């Protein structure tokens, strides 16, 4: 039986610059696809790239401070003024509702004090439109909605791009209002009522630091909602005993990468007869356009499929939705081994099934035993696509892979699944004076996938040995390498692309070198954090310094340093300098 891995194809297209090379080639950024213009640093000559030179040769802005201007520092995004593009997040006390406050630093000083503003608050009121006058047809008067609600908002800082934040609130019946403490930023979200007949209401709000922002959410009138009914079927009969989650979305908006706001509150099917009801805005029915209904199993996860249907909503008709295939589950077994034929223990194994009818199912996850074997219950799916995922633990030298098999109606063994190697990547760290930096913490944070690949699952962290080196076995992907040498030197970051490796059977891959990371010199920045009164020092406040950068034409941030204030409200951090 054959197995095909979904790992990137490989060839001998090696990178052109060797370790220590100062002028790596600059290649047309247009070839980078989604990774365009990532200013990446790599000189990993033993990392073998794909057939088209993929991962694409990378545009390298700088590999060290000496390639930058006299007052510039080599950051992960290229050369830059270490005193500019700095933003600071100051978090007084999340537990007490005193959430993060952001400060843009125009020009970094040796002393940076922060005077906080009062807490940022969202003041909401919830009203419901009254039923229309039957005589005139005019909308009825709005009244405060005093029943139980939940509010969820998510977004990011307005000053530090890419810094995600989310807040939520659930409250019992109150006087038609809610108060939510949050960090400043731009948010969207949803207000959901406990009454399942009222569709979730989208929220968009920008919260200014220290301000009380008012928001009014208007719920639709009861006479502007319409109930539609439906029933799920298996091959011929309703799905007895199983429960499915039913959701409704607009069919005119794409479901990927993010589905549109739901048209109705999600509901569960009746386990006795698989029937369901959805309460939709009447305007959706009147529009005469199809909607999408998604059914997801909740009681039999992985052994019944998830399916999305496009239907014309009609309150006068019971929707008949056939889901499938729905067959008796089968057992799949096998053994995971590495390139030397040794069992890979404790790997996660599961199966993704895509049926011919567009339904999908993911089996439960199991782990490989001490001898590398596994056994998993799966949806029988002889004619569709079935991918067996095998994901070893983070520290293992064997890498993840997806194998494709037809899944018949009988139990079957797929034999040995040979996993590809992760790429052994040596990182060498030296001090600003070119001495080996031992005991420096190296963090490889996956930030993007290579084309045709998947985002690496694991972040890896190790401490450098006495010679300043560490070898990390990494999945192919784009990583940000953060090196934290500890006081008094600052954190230094670089971006690297790690390709897949090709070796002869029975051999381990050779170690590839990322070009040496020379730590930045540090400057000490101190300061004091005081309350809104301008006098009272605040202790235990978390202060985080970021560099605001543009990567891949996307504004984001890099963490430079963090500290917590002492009893006198004082903090001290080490930031890069020349």
């Amino acid at each position, binding site marked *: 039986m054959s197995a095909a891995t979904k790992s990137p194809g490989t060839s001998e297209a090696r990178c052109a610059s060797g370790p220590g090379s100062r002028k790596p080639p600059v290649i047309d950024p247009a070839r980078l696809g989604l990774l365009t213009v990532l200013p990446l640093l790599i000189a990993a000559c033993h990392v073998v790239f794909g057939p088209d030179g993929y991962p694409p040769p990378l545009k390298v802005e700088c590999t060290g401070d000496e390639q930058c201007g006299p007052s510039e520092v080599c950051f992960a995004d290229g050369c830059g003024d270490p005193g500019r593009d700095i933003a600071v997040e100051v978090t007084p006390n999340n537990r007490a509702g005193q959430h993060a406050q952001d400060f843009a630093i125009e020009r970094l000083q040796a002393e940076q004090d922060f005077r906080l503003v009062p807490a940022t608050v969202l003041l909401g009121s919830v009203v419901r439109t009254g039923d229309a006058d039957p005589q005139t047809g005019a909308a009825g008067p709005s009244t405060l909605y005093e029943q139980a609600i939940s509010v969820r908002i*998510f977004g990011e800082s307005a000053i530090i791009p890419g810094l995600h934040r989310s807040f939520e609130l659930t409250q019992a019946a109150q006087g038609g209002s809610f108060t939510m403490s949050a960090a400043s930023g731009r948010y969207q979200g949803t207000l959901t009522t406990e009454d399942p007949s009222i569709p979730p209401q989208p929220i968009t709000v920008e919260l200014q630091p220290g301000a009380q922002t008012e928001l009014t959410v208007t719920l639709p009138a009861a006479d502007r909602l319409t109930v539609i009914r439906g029933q799920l079927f298996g091959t011929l009969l309703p799905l007895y005993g199983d429960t499915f989650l039913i959701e409704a979305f607009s069919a005119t908006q794409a479901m990927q990468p993010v*589905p549109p706001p739901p048209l109705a509150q999600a509901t569960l099917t009746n386990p006795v007869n698989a029937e369901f009801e959805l309460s939709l805005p009447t305007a959706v029915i009147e529009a005469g356009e199809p909607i999408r209904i998604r059914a997801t199993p909740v009681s039999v996860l992985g052994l019944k499929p998830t399916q999305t249907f496009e239907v014309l909503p009609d309150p006068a008709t019971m929707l008949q939705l056939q889901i499938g295939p729905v067959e008796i589950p089968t057992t799949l077994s096998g053994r995971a081994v590495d390139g030397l034929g040794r069992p890979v*223990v404790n790997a996660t194994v599961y199966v993704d099934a895509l049926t011919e009818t567009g339904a999908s199912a*993911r089996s439960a996850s199991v782990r*490989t035993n001490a001898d590398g074997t596994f056994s998993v219950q799966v949806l029988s799916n002889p004619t569709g696509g079935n991918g067996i995922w095998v994901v070893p633990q*983070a520290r293992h030298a064997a890498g993840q892979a997806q194998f494709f098999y037809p899944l018949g109606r009988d139990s079957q063994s797929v034999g040995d699944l040979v996993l590809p190697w992760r790429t052994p990547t040596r990182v060498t760290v030296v001090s600003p004076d070119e001495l080996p930096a031992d005991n420096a*913490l190296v963090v490889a944070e996956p930030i993007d996938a290579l084309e045709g690949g998947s985002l690496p*699952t694991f972040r890896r*962290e190790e401490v450098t040995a006495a010679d300043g080196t560490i070898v990390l076995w990494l999945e192919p992907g784009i990583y940000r390498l953060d090196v934290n040498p500890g006081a008094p030197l600052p954190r230094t970051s670089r971006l690297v692309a790690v390709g897949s490796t090709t070796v002869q059977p029975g051999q381990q891959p050779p170690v590839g070198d990322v070009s040496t990371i020379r730590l930045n010199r540090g400057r000490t920045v101190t300061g004091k954090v005081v309350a809104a009164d301008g006098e009272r020092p605040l202790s235990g406040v978390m202060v985080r310094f970021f560099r605001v950068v543009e990567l891949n034409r996307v504004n984001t941030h890099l963490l430079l340093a963090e500290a*917590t204030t002492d009893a006198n409200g004082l903090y001290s951090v080490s930031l890069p300098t020349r």
Partner: protein
Amino acid sequence: MRFRPARLASLLLGQGLVRARLTGLLALGLSGCLLPLPGDDVLPLPDAKNRPPRIEELNVTPQGRIVSLDVGNGCVLQLGLPVSDPDLEDLITVRWFVDFDTTPVEGEPDDTSFSETLLVSTGREQRGNASITLRTNTAGSRLATPGLHLVEAYVSDGRLQVVNLDGVLVVQPLPREVDADGGIIDPNYVVSYAWFVQTPVGCPTAGGVP
């Protein structure tokens, strides 16, 4: 009557006043010295014992113990755990678990931690944030399955291990110092924090299968 120690010494010792004065001075001087008795060695100060790390709970992010992933946000979850340790040189280890099953399975290895975070010395008690980003669109992501998940962080000032104690898997720190019999002279410590994470239907997954 005025007290005169030299005269009293002279009377008691039956000696002349001058010799009594000298004897008194000698006795007075010697009384200030603590002379060790034979075989009674002065013990050194005890070695400093390890002290436990601490999670600064005020600024843990997210603050709520029950967290819902946002489909609109790509179902990305950023967790942050500020950690401090009074022993400035200790290397802090944070082991992250998702849906840690404490029931050992025969023949299966015990350590199923998802990731490990290290916090090096900063010269101060505050070590900064032990942080992790959890996603549903990575292969093998345990958060990818819709439903409720348990994310746990075990913070230690030593290396952590997962051991089988009478049929239950527990996370323990390796001791700092043991005696010849295996008794723990100086322990390492572990503290933990946990979130319940709700994964909604519709989160992106590796391969696109929900």
